[in-house]
């Protein structure tokens, strides 16, 4: 049974078409990243899956059942973008409250709360009001409160926004552990490198439409074929500029090469002709950011 299936969903808010026919599936045990620039429709999609947005048309199925406010809620865990916790309650009290709100009895919640405190690394500070916690600690607890009831599908809306690299690493370790326990994860993020390194597949949406779906390797191949990016470190920037090369640093230029064997020697020759000495050279596969830029025509943060 497919944990989550989104089929041709449409939603309009006044003059804005937030969703215009998005379809995708989240497979069992999969870690799927939902990427898109601001206003692309990501949060609307997540809220629609969570039953908080009434669709104009289309269909969302959660574990084979139509997802609405009353159906299959126990199978779904949602981690909102804001740290939506009670600051005056302790970590343990927050966990207990959200366990109860998600349908666990006090007795049923005892074991998951102990697990969550270990999982988040907060056991030592379980009984402190969380207003004293760092941003990263609150983020971890924020995630734990959304998954205490062991949901089979977890929606994570920007779970690492605003946290330091160390805490981010900790959060991804938690998510990896969650996935290995059998949960399927749908993540929205701006951190393309994270999606690239950790997610199984990526769905890119823009203007409410899906523009690409697949593994990072597939998306790169689809967008760039065998094209690679060459980065040259020079003694000085050529004047006038060489067509096909773009300055990205004081002495660094970059350019795309369709065929490394044919195009790279040609670029090196032109640089020599311009009187530049090449001090360093790196040939890179295009990143997900490049894919995103090519597909949507804009940087992810636009």
């Amino acid at each position, binding site marked *: 049974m497919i944990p989550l299936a989104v089929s041709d969903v449409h939603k309009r808010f006044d003059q804005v078409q937030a969703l215009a026919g998005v379809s995708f599936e989240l497979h069992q045990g999969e870690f799927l990243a939902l990427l898109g620039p601001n206003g692309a429709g990501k949060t609307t999609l997540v809220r629609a899956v*969570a039953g908080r947005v009434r669709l104009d048309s289309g269909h969302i199925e959660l574990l084979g059942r139509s997802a609405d406010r009353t159906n299959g809620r126990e199978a779904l865990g949602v981690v909102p973008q804001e740290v939506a916790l009670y600051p005056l309650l302790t970590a343990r009290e927050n966990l207990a409250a959200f366990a109860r709100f998600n*349908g666990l009895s006090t007795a049923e919640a005892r074991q998951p709360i102990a697990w969550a405190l270990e999982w988040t690394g907060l056991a030592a500070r379980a009984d402190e009001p969380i207003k004293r916690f760092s941003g990263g600690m609150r983020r971890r607890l924020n995630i734990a409160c959304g998954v205490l009831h062991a949901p089979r599908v977890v929606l994570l809306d920007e779970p690492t926004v605003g946290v330091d690299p160390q805490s981010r690493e900790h959060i991804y370790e938690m998510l990896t552990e969650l996935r290995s326990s059998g949960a399927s994860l749908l993540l929205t993020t701006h951190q393309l490198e994270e999606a690239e390194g950790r997610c199984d597949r990526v769905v890119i949406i823009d203007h409410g439409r899906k523009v690409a779906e697949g593994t990072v390797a597939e998306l790169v191949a689809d967008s760039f074929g065998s094209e690679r990016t060459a980065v040259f470190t020079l003694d000085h920037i050529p004047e006038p500029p060489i067509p096909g090369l773009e300055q990205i640093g004081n002495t660094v230029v970059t350019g795309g090469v369709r065929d490394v064997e044919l195009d790279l020697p040609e670029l090196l020759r032109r640089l020599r002709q311009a009187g530049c000495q090449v001090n360093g050279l790196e040939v890179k596969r295009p990143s997900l950011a490049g894919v995103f830029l090519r597909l949507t025509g804009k940087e992810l943060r636009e």
Partner: protein
Amino acid sequence: MIGTVLRVSFTNLRRDRVAQLLSFILPIVFFSILAVIFGNQSNRTPHVGVAVVDEDGSELSRRLVAGLKGETSLRVRTTTRADKNTPEIPLDRDGARSLVRAGDVPVALIIPKGLGESGLRFVGGERAKVTMLADSSDPIAPQMVAGLLQKVAMTAAPDLMMGNGISMFEKYAGALTPGQRRAVDSWLPRLKEQSAQPAPSPAAGGKDSTSGAVAGLIATEVVDVLRDGREKKTIVAFYAAGIGVMFLLFTCSGAGGALIEEQESGTLERLLLSRLGMARLLLGKWLYLLLLGALQLTVMFVWGAVVFGLDLLGHLPGFVIVTVFTAAAAAGFGLLLATACRTRAQLGGISTIVILVMSAIGGSMFPRFLMPESLQKVGLLTFNGWALDAYLKVFWREQPLPALAPQLAMLLVLTLVFLAVTRLLARRWEHV
């Protein structure tokens, strides 16, 4: 630069409707309420209800009753009945006492046997005293009725007073001559005739007629039927209820604002994503506010009992019931305000306006019986007016629990209305 500060400040004010309401409308509203209460607008005298028991049955007493009935500022009751299906019967002393104790009228006049016989006179001899059974929670009404009683004595029975005066004169100064006697006898019927004319309007002559010169024409004694010395009761009961209910409203609207805080912090969205649901969330919040409000009122009354000698233990069942119903309504009202407002700042401003106006009209700040009749009726549109009436029935009038039924029923209905409207307004937080 100072000009820029001014411009920014005025722009903010222009765009902040709540601040405009607080700055300009609320003071006007308060001014108007106070002007209506204390300003005696349009020279209209408030109507005072008075029960009159004529135990004397003499011509003088009958004329006094008729004179009182002719006073436009009094609503005179001389009869009562057990229920709607039984005929009206004349009031007796106990019936009148019950009416005052129940708060139906603030004053009852008992015209005792022998008043007609002792006659109207300023001084001398044993005078039968008219008893005024009064509710001392209203300090104005007994004085007003006492003054009007003296006025009516002057205007309703001048012939009897004259006759009485001539008798006194003859007793101490010797008999009138036959000529004087004829003149007096021809004048007395004219006086009687004049007294049968309608009473002058209060605006025309009512004020002057209660001057000190006639203040002692009828001897009166005031009996406070709500302070018979057995219980230790003070006006504290009134203010404990009034202030308690007003601050209860502030507490409930403030605590209801937690909903807006939850919306702003994201926990509301998270709660709605969980299996809790809006109805259960609102019910939980309402129960919390109810308990908080009941606790707050209890603290208030316990303080009143410990520090000011309020007899709380003696009225415990009534207190508990009224407190629960009042807190339930206040909790519903607080939630209603919170769901109607979009931001915490808006809630703060709107609730200040609404609560202060409701408290003024509902009687938390000034007793409702001091207000003009029309404003007293408007006060019943506020739930705190009903709550205060219920507390007064318990602590002041010492009514039995069944007598609280109208107030409790109204508080219950208002609670349900508040909760229903809250539920409707809260839909904006649900699906989009």
